[in-house]
């Protein structure tokens, strides 16, 4: 019996011919877009994490502390909430960094009679500290340290990060919803078409008293098959695009987002996409059936 039902499902697909091909291609495109969007958001998410790692709050100290004082100060700051890591930068290290930064103009620094740069603490933020509130609280606390001369940096980056994330979430939800709707629309349209092709068969089935399962299952199977095919092709499409465009994209992504490497979809995401396609297709098939039920 199951063989018969699967046979009927395949027959449907075959009969729908070019239309079935069109429908599968459309499903492919919808799912590929969905997967592609997932890919982009995974990578952007990683970029955001990297950005967070790069955000630093610099605490300029009133005077260079002794080694013991330094350790104690670092421990104290390390214990503050929102702090991922603390690094002490001595006056001479600061000058070295300045020379590096100046590059060709390093001679400027060499002509200096004394080192005018202050010692400082570089504070890196953890997840809690990288929120606007977390960062604000931390900056206040750092400013209140007796050793602090001035606290600089961090806040605007944290704000940007928060704004960017919120934006990405909204765009992500929006695009994701639109694409899911597109995929469902596609599958339902295609299944409705198959249904029209099968109308007479369904009527005969109804009239001779075929069990509900026999009526419904081929449509469901056909929808699922279509969704699965679409998903598999979508994944191939993504792999192909990734393989072709990835190497060219990396430098650009590197420059704009600061990501070193692009990541492809994880295996479980790929499986998820295939499952999603299959279920979407089945859903479309089931829906279409509901529409012409007696």
């Amino acid at each position, binding site marked *: 019996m199951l063989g018969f039902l699967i046979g009927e499902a395949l027959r449907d697909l075959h009969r729908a011919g070019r239309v079935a091909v069109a429908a599968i291609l459309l499903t492919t495109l919808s799912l590929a877009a969905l997967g592609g969007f997932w890919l982009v958001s995974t990578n952007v998410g990683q970029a955001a994490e990297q950005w967070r790692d790069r955000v630093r709050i610099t605490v300029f100290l009133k005077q260079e502390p002794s080694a013991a004082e330094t350790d104690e100060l670092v421990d104290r700051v390390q214990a503050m909430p929102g702090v991922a890591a603390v690094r002490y930068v001595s006056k001479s290290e600061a000058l070295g960094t300045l020379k590096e930064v100046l590059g060709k103009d390093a001679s400027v620094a060499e002509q200096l009679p004394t080192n005018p740069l202050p010692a400082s603490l570089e504070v890196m933020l953890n997840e809690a500290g990288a929120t606007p509130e977390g960062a604000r609280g931390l900056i206040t606390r750092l400013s209140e340290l007796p050793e602090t001369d001035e606290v600089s940096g961090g806040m605007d980056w944290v704000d940007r990060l928060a704004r960017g994330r919120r934006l990405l979430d909204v765009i992500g939800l929006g695009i994701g919803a639109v694409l899911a709707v597109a995929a469902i629309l596609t599958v339902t349209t295609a299944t409705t078409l198959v249904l029209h092709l099968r109308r*007479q068969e369904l009527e*005969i089935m109804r009239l001779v008293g075929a069990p509900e399962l026999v009526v419904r299952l081929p449509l469901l199977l056909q929808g699922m098959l279509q969704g699965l095919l679409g998903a598999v092709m979508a994944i191939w499409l993504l792999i192909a695009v990734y393989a072709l465009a990835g190497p060219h994209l990396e430098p650009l992504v590197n420059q704009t987002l600061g990501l070193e490497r692009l990541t492809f979809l994880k295996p479980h995401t790929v499986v998820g996409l295939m499952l999603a396609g299959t279920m979407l297709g089945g859903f479309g098939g089931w829906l279409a059936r509901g529409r012409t039920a007696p």
Partner: protein
Amino acid sequence: MIELHRVWKVFSVGPVKVPALSDISFRVAKGECVTLHGASGAGKTTLLRLLYREELPTEGDIEVLGCDVPALRVREVAALRRSIGVVFQDAKLLPGRTVYENVAFVLRVLGTPRREITPRVFDALRRVGLSARAQAYPAQLSQGEAQRAALARAIARKPLLLLADEPTGSLDESMAGEVIDIIKDIWARGTTVLFATHQARLAAALHQRTLHLLSGRLVKDEG
């Protein structure tokens, strides 16, 4: 087997009421062969459709094979229909399948074991004289051949009750006589038959009980 009690069927087409059946009551016992005779528009098809619950009566009680037909639920309707073979007036063959596949399709759908299908299909086709055209598609059949294919489909299921709606409408007289013989044969094997026709001669030819419909009323029950 079949029992109708004061059955009315009134269709509404816009504001117009079309009384297709008025106050019909009759009873058909198991093993009977009954002819339903009436002119075009008399209500024959409507009456048959009530029996396999393709329509609900406006009023009245219908019992078929022990079921209270109007009260059946969806699942039960399917079960009832599985015991009834219907030859539709418009054949209703599937255009995308050959004659063989049309008959086999219904058997498969109803879960007939695989190895029984081919012999049963060919047996049915042989009885209606269509063995040679088993591989033809409906569009390749003359209308008379299509009606015989529909008959084959109905009898291949070996139903308890056979409802045949003008299975001879497009057949010339000699072929109509053959179809009558097939129906007699099926009846002889124990199937209860209700056979609708507008041809008085055919009704007479069966030498069985005949119900006469006139504009939706049962005017005579003879034989």
